[in-house]
C-alpha cells in the first residue's frame, strides 16, 4: 500500500531536481567560498547564483538576503538582533500569541533580558486586527513580529496592511514566512517588511537551511559571531550544497506558486467539506478562506489527537495534531487555545497539510477511512454518550 503524506507543514520531501542540483556540491564541486583558488571561486559563484534565486523569489535585492541554518535561526536572529540593535530607542516589542515557538521562546528570553512584549489578541479564526496593532504601538516600540501564515491552523495574517501601518510609525517589522514561501506569493516590498524568515525544508529544499531577509539599511546585531561570511553579518563557512538547494527549491516553488495554490485549494476544500459533512461534531479551525492552500485543521470532539494519528498511520496516512500527548507536554497547542478552543476540543485536533505530491485520490482515500476511525475511537471514549 502506498502511503498518503498529509504533513507538509512539518516537512516536505526534497524535490528530485533540487537534489540533483545539490549532489555535485557534496562531491566533486566542493570548495570553500572564501578561498582564492578555483574551487573557492566556483563555490562563491554557486552561492551568488543561489542568492539571486532567493532574492528574486521574494522581491528583494541579492544584497538583502542572508543564509542561515533554518527558520529557527532566522527568527532568533531577527528578534534578538533587532532588539539589541535598537535598545537605545526603546525596549517594547509587539507580537502575537500564535507564533511558532521559534518566535515565542525567543521573546520569552528577550523579556528576561529586560525587553517588554505585548501580545496582540487574535479572533476566533486566528486573525490579528490592524486597529489592535495601531493601539499597541507606543513611543517605546522598536519591533513588531507577526507571522505571515500560521503553521497549525493555516490562517494568513494581513501582513501588507500591518506592514504599511508599522512602517508609517517608524518601527521595524519582522514576519515569519516559513509556512508562506511556496504556498502563497510573497513580496517583501509589497508587504513592507523589514525582515522575513524562511526555511528550505518547507518548500521541497534541504533541512537545516534557511534565510533571513534584512531590508537595506536596517541595523540588526549579529547572532553568530566569527568569520566574515555573509558580508560580515553571519559567520560560518557557507553550507554550499544547502545553499544551492535552497536557491533551486525557492526558484521552483515560487515559480509555480499560483497554479499550485489553486490546485491545493480545491483539494483542501474537498477535504474540509468531506470531513465536516461525514463526521458529526467537527469544526474547522482557522479562517475559512484566508488560509494556506494546503492546510486543513479540524477539531473532532470526544477523541484525542494522538490516538487518531496512530490509527491514521496504520491506515497509511501521515497527519499531525495539536494534542498535548503529541507534544510531550500536558498542554494542547497554544494556537488552538489562543483562538478560544477548550482543552478537550484542542486535544482532539487533526491537521492535514497537503502538498505538491498529493492528488485527488489521496483526499478520497482519507475521506473513506477517517469516519470509521473516528467512530471506533468515539465508541471507546467516556466523553461520548451518544454511541
Amino acid at each position, binding site marked *: 500500500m502506498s502511503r498518503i503524506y498529509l504533513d507538509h507543514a512539518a516537512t516536505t520531501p526534497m524535490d528530485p531536481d533540487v537534489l540533483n542540483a545539490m549532489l555535485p556540491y557534496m562531491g566533486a564541486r566542493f570548495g570553500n567560498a572564501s578561498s582564492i583558488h578555483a574551487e573557492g571561486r566556483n563555490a562563491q559563484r554557486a552561492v551568488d547564483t543561489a542568492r539571486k534565486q532567493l532574492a528574486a523569489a521574494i522581491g528583494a535585492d541579492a544584497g538583502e538576503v542572508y543564509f542561515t541554518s533554518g527558520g529557527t535561526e532566522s527568527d532568533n536572529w531577527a528578534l534578538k538582533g533587532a532588539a539589541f540593535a535598537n535598545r537605545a530607542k526603546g525596549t517594547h516589542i509587539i507580537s502575537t500569541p500564535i507564533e511558532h515557538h521559534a518566535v515565542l521562546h525567543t521573546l520569552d528570553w528577550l523579556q528576561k533580558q529586560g525587553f517588554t512584549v505585548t501580545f496582540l489578541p487574535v479572533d476566533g479564526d486566528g486573525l490579528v486586527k490592524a486597529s489592535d496593532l495601531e493601539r499597541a504601538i507606543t513611543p517605546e516600540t522598536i519591533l513588531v513580529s507577526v507571522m505571515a501564515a500560521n503553521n497549525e491552523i493555516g490562517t494568513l495574517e494581513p501582513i501588507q496592511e500591518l506592514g504599511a501601518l508599522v512602517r508609517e510609525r517608524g518601527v521595524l517589522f519582522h514576519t515569519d514566512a516559513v509556512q508562506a514561501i511556496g504556498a502563497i506569493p510573497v513580496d517583501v516590498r509589497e508587504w513592507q517588511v523589514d525582515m522575513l524568515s524562511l526555511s528550505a525544508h518547507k518548500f521541497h529544499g534541504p533541512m537545516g537551511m534557511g534565510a533571513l531577509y534584512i531590508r537595506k539599511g536596517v541595523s540588526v546585531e549579529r547572532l553568530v559571531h566569527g568569520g566574515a561570511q555573509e558580508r560580515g553579518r553571519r559567520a560560518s563557512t557557507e553550507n554550499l550544497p544547502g545553499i544551492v538547494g535552497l536557491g533551486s527549491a525557492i526558484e521552483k516553488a515560487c515559480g509555480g506558486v499560483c497554479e499550485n495554490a489553486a490546485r491545493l485549494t480545491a483539494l483542501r476544500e474537498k477535504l474540509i467539506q468531506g470531513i465536516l459533512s461525514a463526521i458529526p461534531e467537527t469544526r474547522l479551525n482557522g479562517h475559512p478562506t484566508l488560509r494556506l492552500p494546503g492546510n486543513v485543521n479540524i477539531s473532532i470532539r*470526544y*477523541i*484525542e*489527537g*494522538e*490516538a487518531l494519528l*496512530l490509527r491514521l498511520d*496504520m491506515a497509511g496516512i501521515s497527519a499531525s495534531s495539536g*494534542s*498535548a*500527548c*503529541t507534544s*510531550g507536554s*500536558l*498542554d*494542547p497547542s497554544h494556537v488552538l487555545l489562543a483562538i478560544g478552543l*477548550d*482543552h*478537550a476540543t484542542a*486535544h482532539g485536533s487533526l491537521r492535514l497539510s497537503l502538498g505538491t505530491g498529493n492528488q485527488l485520490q489521496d483526499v478520497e482515500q482519507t475521506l473513506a477511512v477517517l469516519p470509521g476511525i473516528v467512530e471506533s475511537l468515539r*465508541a*471507546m*471514549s*467516556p*466523553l461520548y454518550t451518544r454511541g
Partner: protein
Amino acid sequence: MYSETVMDHFTHPRNMGEIPNASGTGTVGNAKCGDIMKIDIQVEDGIIKDVKFKTFGCGAAIATSSMASEMVKGKSLSEALKLTNLAVAEALGGLPPVKMHCSMLAEEAIRAAIEDYMAKHPEQP
C-alpha cells in the same frame, strides 16, 4: 516509539466498554491534560469478575487501560489494589518516559472503582 505490546493493546483493546449496573465505577483524569479513563468493575465474593473501560486519551492511555483491565480481572480486591502503574508499564514492554504520566490513570481508575464499590458495600472488609 511504542512497543509491539502497546500497539497490540491500542489496536485491539481488551475489555473495552461498560458494565450496566456495575458494582463500582471509577472515573479519573480530566480533559485539560488530555486523558480521561472510566473503569467499571463487577465484584462477586470479593473477586473482580468482570471489568470494562472507556478511555479518552492517547495511545499510551488506551493501552494501559486495556492492560490494567486484564491484570485485575479475576483478582481479589486486595490484590487489585496492589496494581501499580509501573507494573502495567512493564507488562506493556515499557512506555516512553514522556508517556509515564498517561499510565498513572489506570492505577488511579481501578483504585477509584474499588473505593466506589467499598463505599456502596460498607459491610465488606
